[in-house]
């Protein structure tokens, strides 16, 4: 029964990444229901009672529930060690849940050049022996795209990210931290992903650079709508960027509260001086503080 369900699910939704917990028919049924639920509405990511533990240690995530709509910008906020990066990795397919279900459903209108997801790491993770251009085209290269397609996509990405064509031939070693992060972003976007996962990408940069990059990111997101999941421990950043902030607690990690951010897009830098913004930051900050105490 389980196998049949699994097979049918894969057949219907080729791009779905599903986490399989330990065998249990009830879980499989839950899964099927979740899947049917997601296809009915516009929910892209659905997690129910999600949990993960590594080896014999205490669970890192437990009883986690979340829902993310297509093309939504969501922030995952939590203090260090609450498992937000792990959650992101699970959604990316790099880690498997040990409990509960996790479904990620991609819309079907994909061109050959689109990929499901782009990931931006905390560290730019650029290949130091490749130029900026060669780094950006890596995802296409690994999928066997033609040289022509690669070049086009790289150009597009460079423009999108605000890098000059001359920067393309530089090596990562020659770039500042901010520039490297832009390149990392450009790489994540090169295949026009449906889902953009960002794991504290700007944490290592100074405040001015971080704010600038936040603004640029929003601009890009508006030009090329996709679902964005942004992990951070910076409250102001979470509020500025997202439509919803999901606050995570510690040990074990779970989402304790979801706060709606009512500001409309496009959001300008002036928003930061808005008293309403400060109030929201305060509200979210309080919530976050409560999770730690």
């Amino acid at each position, binding site marked *: 029964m389980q196998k049949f369900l699994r097979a049918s699910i894969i057949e219907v939704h080729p791009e779905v990444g599903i986490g399989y917990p330990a065998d249990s028919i009830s879980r499989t049924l839950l899964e099927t229901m979740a899947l049917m639920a997601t296809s009915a509405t516009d929910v892209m990511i659905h997690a129910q009672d999600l949990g993960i533990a590594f080896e014999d240690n205490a669970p890192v995530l437990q009883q986690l529930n979340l829902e993310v709509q297509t093309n939504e910008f969501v922030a995952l906020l939590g203090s260090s060690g609450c498992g937000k990066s792990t959650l992101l990795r699970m959604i990316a397919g790099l880690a498997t849940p040990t409990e509960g279900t996790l479904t990620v459903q991609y819309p079907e209108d994909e061109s050959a050049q689109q990929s499901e997801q782009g*990931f931006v*790491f905390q560290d730019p*993770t650029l*290949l130091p022996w*490749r130029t900026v251009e060669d780094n950006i085209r890596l995802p296409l290269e*690994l999928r066997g795209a033609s040289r022509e397609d690669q070049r086009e996509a790289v150009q597009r990405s460079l423009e999108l990210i605000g890098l000059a064509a001359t920067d393309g031939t*530089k*090596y990562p070693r*020659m*770039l500042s931290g901010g520039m490297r992060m832009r390149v990392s972003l450009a790489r994540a976007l090169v295949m026009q992903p449906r889902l953009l996962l960002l794991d504290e990408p700007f944490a290592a940069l100074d405040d001015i650079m971080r704010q600038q990059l936040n603004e640029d990111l929003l601009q890009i997101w508006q030009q090329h709508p996709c679902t964005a999941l942004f992990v951070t421990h910076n409250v102001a950043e979470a509020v500025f960027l997202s439509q919803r902030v999901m606050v995570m607690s510690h040990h074990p990690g779970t989402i304790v509260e979801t706060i709606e951010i009512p500001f409309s897009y496009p959001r300008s830098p002036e928003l930061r001086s808005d008293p309403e913004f400060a109030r929201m930051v305060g509200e979210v900050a309080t919530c976050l503080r409560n999770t730690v105490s």
Partner: protein
Amino acid sequence: MKHWFQQIGPIMIPPVIFFAVVLLAWHLVVDINEIESFLVPLPGEVWQVVQEKSVELSRATWNTALAAVSGFMLSVVIGTFTAFVFSQSILVRRSLYPYAIFLQTVPIVAIAPLVINWFGNGFQSIVVVTVVISLFPVITSVTVGLTSVDRGLRDLFEMNRASRWQTLLKLRMPHAVPYLVTGARTSSGLAVVGAIVGEFFAGYASDHYGLGYLVLQSSGQLRTDLLFATIISSALLGVMMFALVTWVGYQLLARWTYAQEQA
């Protein structure tokens, strides 16, 4: 842009001065204490024998260099290939690595006669001995280079659904290049030692001899001046190989390792 002399000067001059001081001290010590020539030669005597025997010395150095370079290149190829195999399978690595270490620690004077037995006297045996001595650093360093890739980079490839082969070719191998260069530098010096020691056991024809033969010859005649000249030649050969490998390494790595941060 400083004049080349101003750039090279500070680097070259101190060792040269030191060398001159040592030379002077050496001469004085031997001269004043009247140390016999079968113990220590005078610097002047060494210089003289270098001039007298320049033909033999250069020919011997050339022959040893041939063996050292051949052995070194084989070591690099075999070592890199072995490291590939090690990097792909933990089981293989665990099974064979101890034997690679064993190969390194068994004294060459014990292995060499065995090598001669199997491969006969001559150039091929000298090369085999050279390989045995210079192989291990390449294996270790390249294995580390292939297996120590950052988690982030590996995740990146995994998420882009890279095949095992793609990961090896586009990620692990370029990552391992600096490690290969480091290993090769160590290996190059060892290769010279190997070529000389190999010659002690594997032989020489009357007209095709190397520095190893000269070492034996000069010791037999108690001619320390020639012995010193031979030793200096071997050291120079080692330095040259090391410099060459370093230069090649620099060419491979310069752009992305040594470039200055600009933006």
